[in-house]
């Protein structure tokens, strides 16, 4: 047997594309955020509401990732925002190469920022850098307040946490301790911004919008 030291990053090929994406976007001073959550957490609803409510302030483009169909891209396009659908055909996360291709199809000159809606999954997407400025994790109250403790990776790596569907808390049908989520998420990531929202009713969305606009300004500076 002969041992050979290699010391190579296994996801190096993905990281090269992520670097390309990041260079392209920072050259253009465009903010890019990678939205991650389980399926059914309200990623698309949050995006559609954000794009609609900020339509006279921010020009937003979207890259949609799903295993199959372009249902989400259609929902975004109904707001008049440009959306490129990536169908991963079974893969549980987006890769930086797919995002690179999608970026070349977006009208970047006409945009202030880009959202990437990753494939619904709380684990795998957090392992693949796409060249984004930051990750945003969505946690709906229906998923339970133990998720930061159970899935530390994504909460540790995210810039902001949207606790979604807070309108359901008033129904009394959901047991969810918001303070526990805040404490656990901040233990993993002291700098994480936390926004309790309802993308359906609009509750709490203004704070999220203020933060988003400040991030776009930072990228433009």
């Amino acid at each position, binding site marked *: 047997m002969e041992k050979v030291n*290699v010391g190579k*990053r*296994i996801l190096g090929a993905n990281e090269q594309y992520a670097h390309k994406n990041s260079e392209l976007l920072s050259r253009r001073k465009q903010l890019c955020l990678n939205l991650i959550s389980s399926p059914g957490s309200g990623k698309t609803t949050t995006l559609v509401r954000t794009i609609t409510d900020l339509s006279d302030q921010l020009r937003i483009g979207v890259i949609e990732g799903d295993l199959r169909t372009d249902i989400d891209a259609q929902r975004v396009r109904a707001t008049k925002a440009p959306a490129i659908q990536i169908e991963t055909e079974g893969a549980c996360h987006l890769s930086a190469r797919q995002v690179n291709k999608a970026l070349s199809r977006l009208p970047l000159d006409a945009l202030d920022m880009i959202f990437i809606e990753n494939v619904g999954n709380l684990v*795998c997407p957090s392992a693949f850098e796409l060249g984004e400025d930051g990750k945003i994790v969505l946690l709906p109250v229906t998923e339970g307040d133990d998720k930061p403790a159970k899935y530390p990776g994504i909460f540790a790596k995210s810039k902001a946490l949207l606790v979604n569907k807070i309108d359901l808390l008033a129904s009394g049908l959901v047991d969810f301790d918001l303070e526990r989520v805040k404490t656990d998420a901040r233990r993993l990531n002291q700098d994480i911004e936390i926004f309790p929202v309802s993308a359906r009713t609009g509750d709490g969305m203004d704070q999220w919008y203020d933060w988003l606009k400040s991030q776009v300004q930072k990228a433009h500076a």
Partner: protein
Amino acid sequence: MHEASVAQELINVICQEARKQAAKPVVARISCGELNGLNDEVFSFAFEAIAQGTVCEGMSLEVEHKPIQARCRACERTFDLNRSELQCTHCHGEDFELLPDAPLVLEEIEFEKE
């Protein structure tokens, strides 16, 4: 199941190295940070399946999981984070920041010698 993508990338890298060495790889040692969430059993299974028909077929994998490291803001020392404790192992402070997770690295390959 991102283990399949990681296995595919790993096999690509090993195949490149095997061409350089002109030898059959037998063992690969990799290291990865805990936040990568790589499951050993799923990973080995995916590797085995994807390796079929390549020079990596029949190889064994050894995965070293590196713990999450954190720096305490009170005593400023770094420590391996115990997920069920979530406090500094030196001064038991609860105010700390996580350090970047160790990347997935192919550390070493053992090749069959002619």
